[in-house]
């Protein structure tokens, strides 16, 4: 009998398929699996790239990272362990060619670099690539192609780097340890580390990243790692292959989680469609179940036949979904692959299996209760048609669906706490959406007595199927809302953020200014009729103790606190608080006070647990500077003025090595002010905020395009859910249409009624989405980003108009088939 069930289920599958009963269910599975596997294939490629290039990403097997020059002992120790070594330093600076000045990410490498992976270059921009044995020779510089375009120089030209000139030798096309263009705001300029002193760019106070690269046999690397760990300064750290590029890994992991969650929204909606379709199918199959029982089939056999049929559908449509997902991921790879300059490898087969598994889990979770129901149809139904199977328990259906969602979430994000939070959020969002949708449907009631026949009939339909309509509304509302948030609200917020800066807000930063350069620079401004900017002193120091208790980054749970505790602070000193700073607790120092005082930004104080009266010790240039926190300040950070977390009275820090920093506004090029400044003082770095903002915008545009793309699956799933609901009401619709036509309604009337029903549904979904997006935009702007908020009318125009048009069209296309059957046939069938 078991084999019989398999054979029977397989044979009947094709027939059922042709009868069109299972197509919507299958389509929902295809979309769910395609959504998940498109993200899965892409994530797999990225992970494989990370794995394959792990040591390349480091350029070594182990790296010592330090903000200060690395003691020769560490390098000699590595050589004593039989390991190869290399080193490089990186820092931002402005390079000059003719009148053009451009911020660049400088990287000075020695002859050993890179120890793992190879540099690739070409002779001309966009020429053919060659692998290089080592980096640039002394006196040479390799630069990225985009800098050639920006500064209009040719290979062989001399580029001014700091106080020296280097010959542009080659075009740098690939750098193994770069990770991704995402983390480099300015173009790369690479030269030999022997040229660093001649540039005069590295001074004790400048912000430079020093790296010692180590490579060799695994045991030797491990031994060295243990040896070096004991000799590191507190501000130095080791990065191995497994913990390489934590910032890159974190960003990738977050991105993948986000895309995965977006894909799961599509799975959830598709699951809803599967549930509706399966329930409809099981109702249609009640007769078949009864006849089979009547002819002697056991309940188990009937259940097996239907469960197996479901299994075949799940497997076949999951396979189709995997194929569709594979095709869809090429778009993601095109959108985001540019950030992986080494290129992405082919994906493994793993997403195929996970796609199949997700398809099966979704089908079982959302369709099984309905299918089991067919086995419960009493055989007596063959004589008494009104007998059906009891509907599956609502709790069973919802419980299983929720459990399925939890399993899928756990699979996708793998962090129990996060899964709990997402589930809770999803539940609340679902309830709120559902409640709002119900409210909107109730609001329609008074309208049922107005308007033409078609509109009245359409509205009556929406209201009568209240519960199903509410679910559909929520689904569409969610899909449209996500797209509105990404396409409109995000853009609005970026614009509001930019507009937030008053017209005279600074748009340029000048950093790395030496104390003796302040006056000549100010004179430069004056000579061009510009206001003298204020130069703020900046002293670098590491927080080593609070109240004599040593500060250890690992002691903080909060990742921001951990980062703050690990890095060097920019300390400043001044007599009076800066404009835009307000003392909120304690008192600013006065002339004659004990100079051992600190003023701390209140947000930082909260993060690090610093209170008024605490004693803070900073390590500055090898000395410990101690003082008491005598006041806490509020700072308006987004003013683009220079601000500091920690400020001291001048007497406390004047003896320490300092550089100066300023910000100012420049709307044109200020008569070549910047080029002149950098030419005169090559060590000075100018950051153009406009260029940085442009870069930020480009990155978020691309990232949100990818997310929008994944949310398209959500909309597709919403459409399939609509089709499932149309299918589920097809029999009733056919009956009604037949009746209407018998009573004399023309085709046009019936179609207009259908169109009215779906357009109103789309309109309501649009209202829900626009309201939700506006609310979320408001909360984000006011509570989180502290930005002015304005309602964007386009949100409503696009949301409501697009919703009405889109859902109206999809619903009309799905439902107009009811007109195909002649009314007499429908009425005679007496469905």
């Amino acid at each position, binding site marked *: 009998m078991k084999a*019989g069930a398999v054979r029977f289920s397989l044979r009947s599958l094709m027939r059922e398929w042709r009868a069109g009963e299972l197509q919507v269910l299958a389509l929902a599975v295809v979309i769910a699996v395609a959504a998940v596997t498109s993200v899965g294939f892409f994530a797999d490629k990225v992970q494989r790239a990370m794995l394959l290039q792990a040591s390349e990403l480091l350029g070594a097997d182990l790296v010592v990272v330090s903000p200060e020059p690395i003691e020769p002992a560490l390098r000699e120790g590595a050589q004593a362990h039989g390991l190869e070594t290399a080193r490089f330093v990186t820092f931002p600076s402005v390079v000059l060619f003719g009148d053009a000045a451009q911020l660049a990410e400088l990287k000075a490498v020695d002859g050993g670099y890179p120890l793992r992976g190879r540099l690739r270059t070409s002779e001309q921009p966009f020429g053919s690539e060659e692998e290089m044995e080592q980096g640039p020779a002394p006196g040479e510089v390799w630069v990225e192609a985009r800098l050639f375009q920006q500064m209009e120089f040719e290979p062989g030209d001399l580029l001014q780097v700091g106080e020296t000139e280097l010959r542009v030798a080659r075009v740098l096309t690939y750098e193994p340890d770069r990770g991704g263009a995402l983390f480099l705001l300015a173009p790369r300029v690479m030269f030999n580390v022997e040229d660093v002193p001649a540039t005069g760019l590295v001074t004790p106070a400048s912000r430079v990243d020093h790296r010692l690269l180590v490579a060799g046999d695994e045991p030797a690397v491990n031994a060295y790692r243990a040896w070096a760990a004991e000799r590191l300064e507190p501000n130095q750290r080791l990065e191995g292959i497994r913990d390489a590029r934590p910032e890159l890994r974190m960003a990738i992991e977050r991105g993948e989680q986000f895309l995965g969650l977006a894909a799961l929204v599509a799975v959830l909606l598709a699951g809803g469609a599967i549930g509706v379709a399966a329930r409809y199918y099981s109702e249609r199959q009640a007769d078949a179940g009864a*006849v089979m029982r*009547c*002819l*002697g089939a056991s309940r*188990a056999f009937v259940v097996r036949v239907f469960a197996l049929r479901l299994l075949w559908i799940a497997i076949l449509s999951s396979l189709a979904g995997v194929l569709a997902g594979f095709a869809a991921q090429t778009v993601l790879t095109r959108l985001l692959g540019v950030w992986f300059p080494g290129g992405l490898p082919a994906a493994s087969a793993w997403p195929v299996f996970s796609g199949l598994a997700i398809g099966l889990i979704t089908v079982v979770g959302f369709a099984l209760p309905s299918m089991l129901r067919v086995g419960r149809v009493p*055989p007596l139904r*063959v004589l008494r048609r009104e007998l059906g199977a009891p509907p599956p328990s609502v709790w069973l259906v919802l419980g299983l669906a929720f459990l399925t969602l939890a399993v899928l979430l756990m699979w996708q994000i793998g962090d129990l706490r996060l899964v709990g939070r997402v589930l809770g959020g999803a539940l609340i969002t679902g309830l709120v959406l559902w409640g709002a949708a119900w409210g909107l449907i109730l609001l329609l009631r008074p309208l049922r007595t107005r308007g033409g026949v078609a509109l009245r009939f359409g509205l009556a339909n929406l209201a009568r199927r209240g519960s199903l309509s509410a679910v559909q509304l929520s689904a569409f509302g969610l899909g449209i809302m996500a797209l509105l948030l990404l396409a409109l609200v995000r853009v609005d917020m970026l614009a509001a953020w930019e507009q937030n800066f008053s017209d005279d807000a600074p748009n340029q930063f000048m950093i790395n200014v030496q104390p003796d350069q302040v006056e000549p620079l100010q004179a430069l401004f004056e000579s061009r009729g510009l206001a003298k900017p204020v130069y703020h002193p900046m002293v670098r120091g590491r927080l080593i103790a609070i109240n004599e208790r040593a500060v250890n980054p690992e002691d903080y749970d909060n990742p921001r606190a951990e980062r703050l505790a690990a890095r060097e602070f920019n300390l400043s000193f001044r007599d009076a608080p800066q404009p835009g700073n307000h003392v909120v607790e304690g008192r600013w120092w006065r002339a004659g006070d004990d100079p051992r005082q600190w003023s701390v930004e209140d947000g930082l104080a909260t993060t690090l647990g610093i209170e008024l009266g605490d004693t803070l010790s900073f390590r500055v240039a090898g000395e410990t500077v101690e003082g008491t926190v005598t006041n806490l300040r509020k700072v308006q950070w987004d003013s683009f003025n220079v601000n500091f977390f920690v400020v001291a009275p001048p007497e406390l820090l004047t003896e320490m090595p300092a550089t100066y920093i300023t910000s100012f506004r420049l709307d044109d090029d200020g008569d070549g002010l910047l080029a002149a400044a950098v030419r005169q003082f090559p060590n000075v770095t100018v950051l153009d905020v406009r260029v940085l903002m442009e870069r930020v915008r480009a990155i978020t545009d691309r990232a949100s395009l990818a997310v929008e793309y994944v949310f398209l699956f959500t909309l597709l799933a919403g459409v399939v859910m609509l089709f499932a609901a149309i299918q589920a009401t097809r029999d009733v619709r056919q009956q009604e249409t037949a009746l209407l036509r018998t009573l004399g309604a023309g085709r046009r009337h019936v179609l207009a009624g259908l169109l009215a029903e779906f357009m109103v549904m789309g309109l309501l979904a649009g209202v829900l989405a626009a309201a939700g997006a506006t609310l979320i935009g408001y909360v984000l702007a006011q509570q989180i980003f502290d930005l002015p908020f304005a309602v964007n009318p386009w949100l409503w125009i696009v949301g409501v108009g697009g919703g009405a048009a889109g859902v109206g069209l999809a619903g009309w296309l799905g439902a107009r088939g009811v007109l195909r059957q002649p009314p007499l046939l429908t009425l005679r069938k007496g469905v």
Partner: protein
Amino acid sequence: MGSNSNALNGALVEAEGLTKFVQGPGGRLDILKGVDLRVAPSEAVAILGASGSGKSTLLGLLAGLDLPSGGEVRLLSESLRALDEDVRARLRAGRVGFVFQSFQLLPALTALENVMLALELGEHPGNARGAALEALERVGLRERVHHYPSQLSGGEQQRVAIARAFAPNPRVLFADEPTGNLDQVTGDQIIGLLFELKEALGTALVMVTHDVELAGRCDRRLFLRDGVLEAQ
């Protein structure tokens, strides 16, 4: 279950003091008030009665599709009272055939597959296809075996149902208003076919109908009136 063909008393279907009531809004409604019936092998019994007299309810009880409120039903010498629904289904498989007023063919299966289904659920699924083709040939549908129910006329659909009912060579056939949905001429043809096969295979027949003429072709006619079965 095994060898219930060696019925002790020779009856294939037997009912004793059969009662059925339902609780309605107006209190208890007695549909059957003590029905006694014996159907011998090869015998044809017609059960007549007005609409709503409980004919179909009685048929359902005799075939083990439902359980009575009181009394006893023995089908193929097995008392149905103690059997759960699955065991009752197994008892029917291949030994009990049905013909319904509304045909009850599975719309997703072809004529051939509908007939094969009954054979595959029975005891000898071996050559289901051959036996089904043969059965369809016997009802004159050799040319239409690959048609779906929706592509067949009412008369043709009922022929498929008859082929399905007789294909496993059942001991007893239950028919519920088999001509109820058919015109006079087609109905007569169907009944001719039904009795022809019944005679050829020696199948017992229990037929519910309100058509007195049709009942006249049976060996015995019983009237269901006020929940009690009376011989005519």
